């Protein structure tokens, strides 16, 4: 089994920088379509959003052991940013201080939920805004965005992004999950746990 490595995720995701969704070419079998099929349960996500699908694709294949024919990527099953958040809470790996390789989750005040996810490549700095609101400046890789970081814009980008733990943003420290413990928990999942799909292993 491949040991969990933030660098593997970052390197794999870097290979997708610049890959976009070309609506005219979005035929079955295309890159974005492939991300969606990896997600398994496409019906639970809003149509067209593939930020989490990119993370799942990169996570799964960056940790795929071709000899064992299985991946050690521990975050299987989540199809939305909010599901990633629930997963992080259940496993105790949802934090408010980022590290390279974490999956960031941006909080939406209108949805009162995490609505966007991406990969932290580098932590560039910390600071305080008005009313003691904390922020972190990050370099990220994100799917389904554009040059200005807007959601649902169809590109994979490398982005300078400012997130604010005070505003609800969190970081999924998936690399802290112990692979063996994860495998050992299979079959004893609680109702809140996301169980790996066997057809994806």
């Amino acid at each position, binding site marked *: 089994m491949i040991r969990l490595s933030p660098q593997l995720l970052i390197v794999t995701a870097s290979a997708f920088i610049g890959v976009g969704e070309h609506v005219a070419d979005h035929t079955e079998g295309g890159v974005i379509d492939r991300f969606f099929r990896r997600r398994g349960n496409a019906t639970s996500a809003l149509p067209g959003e593939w930020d989490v699908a990119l993370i799942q694709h990169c996570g799964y294949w960056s940790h795929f052991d071709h000899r064992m024919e299985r991946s050690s990527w521990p975050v299987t099953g989540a199809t939305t940013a909010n599901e990633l958040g629930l997963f992080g809470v259940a496993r105790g790996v949802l934090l408010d201080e980022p590290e390279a390789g974490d999956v960031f989750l941006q909080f*939406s005040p*209108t949805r009162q939920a995490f609505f966007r996810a991406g990969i932290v490549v580098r932590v560039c700095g910390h600071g305080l805004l008005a009313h003691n609101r904390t922020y972190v400046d990050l370099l990220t890789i994100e799917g389904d965005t554009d*040059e*200005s970081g*807007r*959601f649902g814009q169809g590109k994979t980008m490398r*982005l*300078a992004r400012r997130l604010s733990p005070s505003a609800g943003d969190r970081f999924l420290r998936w690399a802290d999950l112990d692979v063996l413990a994860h495998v050992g928990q299979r079959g004893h999942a609680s109702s809140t746990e996301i169980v790996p799909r066997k057809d994806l292993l």
Partner: protein
Amino acid sequence: MRALPHSPGSRVASHTGDSSLAVAHVWDKLEHSLHSAVCRMTNDTEEQEDLLQEALVELWVIDPTRFDLRERADLAYLRRLLMNRMWDVWRIERRLFRGSRSRPDASL
């Protein structure tokens, strides 16, 4: 906001963005309606500009990428936040300068 070390026009530059650029996109969408609102709050053009400036700073602090800008409801919510900020500043200034007909000279 956060300069990254790569030359303009390079392959890296063409695939590297900055979420602070979203402020300009959103401001273009909201400025007209905010300007209309601020005109109803005060006739003082200098004060109007100050209030709009407050809204712009608030937009930058809030981070518009936190919203799904394709959704009308999200845009409306964001507009309401900025309106509230302008009203708050307007009220504070009224309280501070109560009794005086005009605002003090900004240069003082």
